[in-house]
């Protein structure tokens, strides 16, 4: 009898990424939790916001090194991973609180960052000696995210004051449009790839679609699956933590957690909602095959067609991979560390992922099998 043929869960495209083979390849270490990370399109630098008052820039050209084990006699639980040398990290000082919003201009020179006390900074010479072009108070209270328009002429910011503000990028505080209407904290913002539309997303799972030029509300998209109202505690829990468009703008993904009312001390189950942009309809609520009590914090579309999310809770951190047409993840990678990945970004090589981890490290994962080496033990196929 012929051996049963097992259908692979994902077939990589020629020269494409192989998410099932995803493995940890380097660690960029810091001592504060990392909240956001973005690759430089030239793949020269990685920029991050953290639980401190700096924007951090790692020079990816400096080769990570294997550090000697702390106790050579003790067998390590996991194979050692190369670490970026200490001098590869530059601290960009100017912020007055944690930096949760990081977005790069496509001009290779500028970047925008926002902090938890409402300060927005546009930096220049990001690849050289970065310095603020200007900074100003963009929101009362925290800025949660910032987004630079595709043409680099605008930067959008959202925050705890419920406002969505679009700023011109040629001078400080030049307001292009203010969009009001959220009745709670606004957690995320993203420009549509056409540059004409903007989406903002809030604690209650409301996605608002705005016309960038007029500032008018076009429609709302219902992502309230990612929100729970705790009746016992009389509070809103959850919200949209990650949000992004695919390259052609036909799909919108929103990440978070859904589930029953567990009060204020426990997360729901990780979910990524996939919407058809044209209709605004929900296509899929992407999930792991088992209950995953944690939050999906960051989400990305891969050009090969699959979707990646990072997340977790105190019980563990994960990367999930989905095909857009299937609700259940075809692969999940459990992190070595018990810490969630708050953000995920795809490198220009399309095969490397950067994950911003709670434990103060940006970890780089390669979506390709190491030559002549079996899949690492921590990679759990589903």
């Amino acid at each position: 009898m012929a051996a049963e043929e097992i259908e692979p869960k994902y077939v990589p495209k020629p020269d494409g990424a192989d998410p099932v083979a995803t493995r940890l390849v380097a660690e960029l270490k810091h001592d504060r939790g990392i909240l956001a990370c973005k690759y430089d399109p030239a793949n020269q630098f990685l920029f991050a916001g953290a639980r401190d008052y700096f924007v951090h820039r790692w020079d990816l050209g400096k080769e990570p090194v294997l550090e000697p084990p702390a106790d050579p006699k003790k067998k390590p639980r996991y194979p050692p991973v190369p670490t970026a040398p200490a001098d590869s990290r530059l601290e960009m000082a100017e912020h007055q609180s944690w930096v949760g919003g990081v977005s790069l201009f496509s001009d290779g020179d500028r970047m925008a960052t926002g902090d938890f006390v409402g300060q927005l900074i546009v930096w220049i010479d990001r690849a050289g000696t970065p310095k603020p072009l200007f900074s100003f108070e963009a929101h009362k209270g925290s800025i949660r995210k910032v987004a630079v328009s595709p043409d680099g002429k605008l930067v959008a910011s959202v925050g705890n004051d419920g406002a969505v503000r679009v700023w011109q990028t040629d001078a400080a505080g030049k307001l292009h449009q203010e969009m009001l209407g959220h009745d709670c904290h606004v957690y995320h913002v993203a420009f549509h790839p056409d540059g004409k539309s903007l989406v903002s997303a809030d604690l209650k799972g409301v996605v608002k679609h705005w016309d960038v030029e007029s500032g008018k509300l076009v429609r709302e998209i219902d992502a309230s699956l990612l929100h729970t109202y705790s009746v016992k505690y009389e509070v809103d829990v959850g919200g949209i933590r990650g949000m992004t468009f695919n390259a052609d703008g036909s799909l919108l993904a929103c990440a978070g957690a859904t589930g029953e009312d567990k009060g204020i001390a426990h997360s729901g189950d990780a979910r990524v909602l996939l919407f058809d942009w044209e209709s605004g309809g929900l296509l899929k609520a992407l999930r792991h095959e088992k209950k995953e009590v944690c939050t999906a914090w960051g989400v990305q579309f891969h050009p090969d067609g699959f979707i990646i999310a990072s997340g977790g809770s105190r019980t563990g951190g994960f990367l999930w991979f989905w095909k857009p047409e299937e609700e259940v993840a075809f692969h999940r990678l459990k992190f070595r560390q018990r810490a969630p990945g708050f953000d995920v970004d795809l490198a220009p090589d399309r095969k490397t992922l950067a994950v911003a981890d709670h434990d103060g490290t940006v970890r780089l994962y390669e979506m390709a099998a190491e030559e002549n080496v079996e899949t690492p033990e921590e990679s759990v196929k589903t």
Partner: protein
Amino acid sequence: MKYDPACNSNAHLVSRRSMLGNMVAGAAGVGALGQLIHPLVAREIEAKNKQVLIFLLNGGLSQFESFDPKPNTDTGGPFRSIPTAVPGTHFCELMPYTAQIADKLAVVRSVYAERVPGSHGGAREYVVTGRPPQQGPYPWIGPVYSRLLAANEDLPGNIHITPSRWGPRQDAAFLGPRHASLVLSGGKPPLNVDRPDLFNEELDDTRYRLRQLADQRFSQRRRTAYTEAYQSSYDQAAQLIRQKELFDVTKESEKDQLRYGSHDMGRHCLLARRLLQKGVTCVKVTHNNYDSHMENFNFHLEQLGEFDQPFATLMQDLKESGQLDHTLVMLVTEFGRTPVIQPDNGRDHYQDSWSVVLGGCGIQTGGVLGATNDNGTEIANRPVHVGEMFHTYMQAVGLDPTATHLVGGNNVPIGAPERSAVKELLI
């Protein structure tokens, strides 16, 4: 069953206050009686006009996000510290209104306790009894004030304004249900406080007098703790029905309702002011949702955003009316929160150090006692045990915490005997 004031059996679990809270006539399960307990100490005459306002920030207020901020450290959150009315003293920016009245407060940044069984419940009991819960049950501080300070027999001595869906607590222990908290769940008046349409006031009074006569006749031959509890319950229920406007915060001016805010905490603070003005001895206001194992910063932003302004407004009003001169204000929480920021952006329970705030009568205000180290991981100066705080709460209103309750023939110290008051906090 013989009356045993220290008994904790289920037979005593239907408290008189819970009955009053629902205005239900019927005291089948009513147990121990405060009237039969005779404390050895004479009531301090001068303490009789003292009142107490307690704020319980339930779940465990983060000291980092309130009274002991550590910005730009590995443990500090995203929020800044701001100057207060006391030069050199900073609070977290989530408390801008409270910062403006810091001169009317005494902040203790170095409170600690041992870990006790029962998580929140156990820790809370430790804070409000001054004793670890496994030694108890001991009466909570509200019932103690009701027992030792309440002068007006027509009013409940101890009212607890809570978030919705909170029921009565068995908090009076051996002091008896007479002193247990009358719980106003959601800040609403007790249920069924309206007289049935069937009776007008005259008819109801007649009915009440008839019931009294029957009670008296019955009691002449069968007087027990239960019959007294039964009679007392009716008496207080009748008083509450006559004074139902006591609980009606809409009787306050529109201007004041606006000043305090339309959310629950605003209404509850205004109700607390009303109850104190009407002469209630001890009013406790509980504010919820500080148990922020997850999203500590979001929840503190929300909760303190609700708490800060009405609390400061109430303090200001009490000061301007002169009531603060005879009212002790306590802002307590069952424990603090961990310096370490947990993976879900939360902070866990922390009993090694947290902050307690006092104000009003008997308190040396306008300063900070104790300190934690640079990143708040440990107490650096003047540790203060929760048991010492309990003694301080007593002494501030002129009560002697080393005196005793007489319970079933035994003397039970009011405060834990191994502790004493924090003298630096007292005038």
